[in-house]
C-alpha cells in the first residue's frame, strides 16, 4: 500500500534518514521501532509531506506522492497522528474534529457532522467533553482526540507517531485496544512506537530503524522480544560500536526525537 524506497532526509547538514526502504501492507498493522534519534518521526513527517526528502521515492496505492504538499497527502488518504498529539489547545473538542475534516468543510457539511457522530460513538469520552477546550484534557483524552481528529480526514492509512508517549499503563492499553479496533474496521495502521512490548502484540509486521536505516524487517516472533527491546531502546545496531554506557545519554539535541 505504502512503498518507501531509498528515502533520505536531512536537517541542514545532519542526515536523519539515510536511505530507508520500507513497505506497509494494506489491511495490517505495521510497526516501526527504534531508539530515540533514529529518524522515526522524521520518516513520518516526510511521508506526511511536512518535510521534503532529499532522495528516494514514496508511493501510495501505486501513485508517486514524493514531495507532495501535506494537503495533497491527506487527500490521497494518509493521515498522521503526530508525536505529542498536537491538539489545537484553544479550540474545543468539537472544533478540533471539524478542523480535522478541513478539506471537506464547505462542500460536505452534513457528511462531516455524520463523521463526528461516528467518531463520538467510538470515543464516548470525547462526546462528554465536546465543549471542553482541548488544552484542558488529560494526556489520554488528548491522544484520543488526536486519533479522532485524524480519522475525520477519512484515511485509508492511519499513521501514528508514539501514541503511548507519556501515558499511564492503563491508558496505553486503551489506546492499543483502539488501534486494534480501528484496524479490524478496515483502516491500515502504520505505527511508530517506543513501547516495543505493546507494539509487538498488535503488529502484523515490524521494522527496526537505527541511525536512519532499516536494520530489520520481519514478523513478531522472528526476533526475540528481548533483542527487539534492546535494539529499540538502545540502538545496538550493527554500525554502532560505542560502549554501551555511552548510549543511555539524554537524546535531546536539535533533532526531534524518534
Amino acid at each position: 500500500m505504502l512503498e518507501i524506497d531509498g528515502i533520505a532526509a536531512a536537517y541542514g547538514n545532519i542526515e536523519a534518514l539515510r536511505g530507508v526502504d520500507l513497505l506497509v501492507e494494506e489491511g495490517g498493522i505495521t510497526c516501526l521501532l527504534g531508539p530515540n534519534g533514529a529518524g522515526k518521526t522524521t520518516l513520518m513527517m516526510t511521508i506526511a509531506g511536512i518535510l521534503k526528502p532529499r532522495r528516494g521515492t514514496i508511493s501510495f496505492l501505486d501513485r508517486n506522492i514524493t514531495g507532495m504538499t501535506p494537503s495533497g497527502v491527506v487527500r490521497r488518504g494518509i493521515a498522521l497522528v503526530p508525536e505529542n498529539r498536537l491538539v489545537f489547545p484553544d479550540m474545543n473538542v468539537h472544533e478540533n474534529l471539524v478542523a480535522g475534516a478541513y478539506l471537506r468543510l464547505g462542500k460536505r457539511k452534513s457528511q462531516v457532522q455524520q463523521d463526528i457522530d461516528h467518531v463520538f460513538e467510538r470515543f464516548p469520552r470525547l462526546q462528554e467533553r465536546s465543549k471542553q477546550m482541548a488544552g484542558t484534557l488529560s494526556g489520554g483524552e488528548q491522544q484520543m482526540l488526536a486519533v479522532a481528529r485524524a480519522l475525520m480526514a477519512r484515511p485509508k492509512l492511519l499513521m501514528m507517531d508514539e501514541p503511548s508517549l507519556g501515558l499511564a499503563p492503563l491508558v496505553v492499553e486503551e489506546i492499543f485496544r483502539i488501534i486494534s479496533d480501528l484496524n479490524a474496521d478496515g483502516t491500515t495502521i502504520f505505527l511508530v512506537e517506543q513501547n516495543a512490548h505493546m507494539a509487538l502484540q498488535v503488529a502484523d509486521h515490524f521494522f527496526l530503524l537505527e541511525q536512519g536505516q532499516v536494520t530489520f524487517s520481519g514478523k513478531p516472533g522472528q526476533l526475540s522480544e528481548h533483542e527487539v527491546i534492546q535494539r529499540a531502546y538502545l540502538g545496538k545496531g550493527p554500525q554502532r560500536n560505542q560502549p554501551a554506557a555511552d548510549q543511555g545519554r539524554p537524546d535531546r539535541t536539535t533533532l526531534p526525537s524518534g
Partner: protein
Amino acid sequence: MDWLDFFQSITDGLLFGSIYALIGIGFTLIFGVMHKINLAYGAASIAGAYVSIAVAAYVPLPALVTFLIAAIASGGIAFLIYLANFRFIPLASPLATLMATVGMLILIDEIVVHATDGMPQPYPALFADIYIEWGDFGLRGDLIFIFVLSLIAMVVLMFMLYRTRLGIATRAVAQQPVAAQLAGISLDRTNALTFVITGLLGGLAGAMIGASVGVLSPLLVVPITVKGLIVCVIGGLGSIPGAIIAGLAVGAFENFFLAFRGVTERDMYVMLLLFVFLVFRPGGIFSRSVARD
C-alpha cells in the same frame, strides 16, 4: 478639572480608541498566526486611505464608499507586504522579516510623501455636523460613527474567525501549525489571507483616522504604528479581546491627558503607560490560558 470634563474626555477617547483597537487587532492577528510582527501594517493602513482619496479625486464618491475603497486598497497592500516580506524571506530568522517590514514601512511612507509632495490631504468626514447634547455633555457624530463602524468590523471579524472555514484554518495555524498542515490546511494560503484580512481592517482604520482628524498626513504613520504596538502589549500579543479592550483604554487614556495636560504632553504619558505594562504586566491585561499535558 471637573467631573463633566473628565467624563467628556474619557468618552471621546473611548470612541476614538476603537480605531486603535482595530490597528491593534491587525498586529495581534498577524502575530497570533505567524508569530511575526508586521511593522509596515500602520503604513499600509494609512496608504490605503490615501488610495481612496486618490480615487475619490477622479470620481465623486459617497464617503462610505471611500471608506470601502480604503479597506480594499489596504488589503491589497497587505497582500503585497506578505509576498515581499514574508513569503520569500526565511521565516526561521526572526530579524529578517522584522527588518524587511521596517524597510517596507519606510518605503510606503516615502511613496506617500512623493505622491503628495508631503502636503496633508483633506479627508471627507462623516456625520461631522451631528452633535448630540445632554446639557454640557455631548457626543460628536463622527466619533459615534467611527465607534459603530469599528464595532461592526469586529463583529464581522469574530464571525469570520469562529464561524467559517477560513476561521478554522486561521485559528488552527495560530495554535498548532504542524497539526494544521496535517489536517490539510495550507500555511501559505492561510498566512496570506490573514494578511489580507488585517489589511481590510487597517484600511478601514486609516480612513476613519483621516475622517476624524480631517486630513491625511504621512506624519500619522509612526504614531499609529507605535500605538498599535502598545495596544498589542497591553492587550497581550495574540489576544483579540485584549486588543479591543486595550485599544479603547489607550484611546481614553491619551484623550484624558490631551484634555488636561495638552497635546504636546499627551504621547509622553502613553509611552510611560507602555513601560508600566511591560514591567508589571508583560503578558497583557489578560494572560492567555496555558495548555496542560
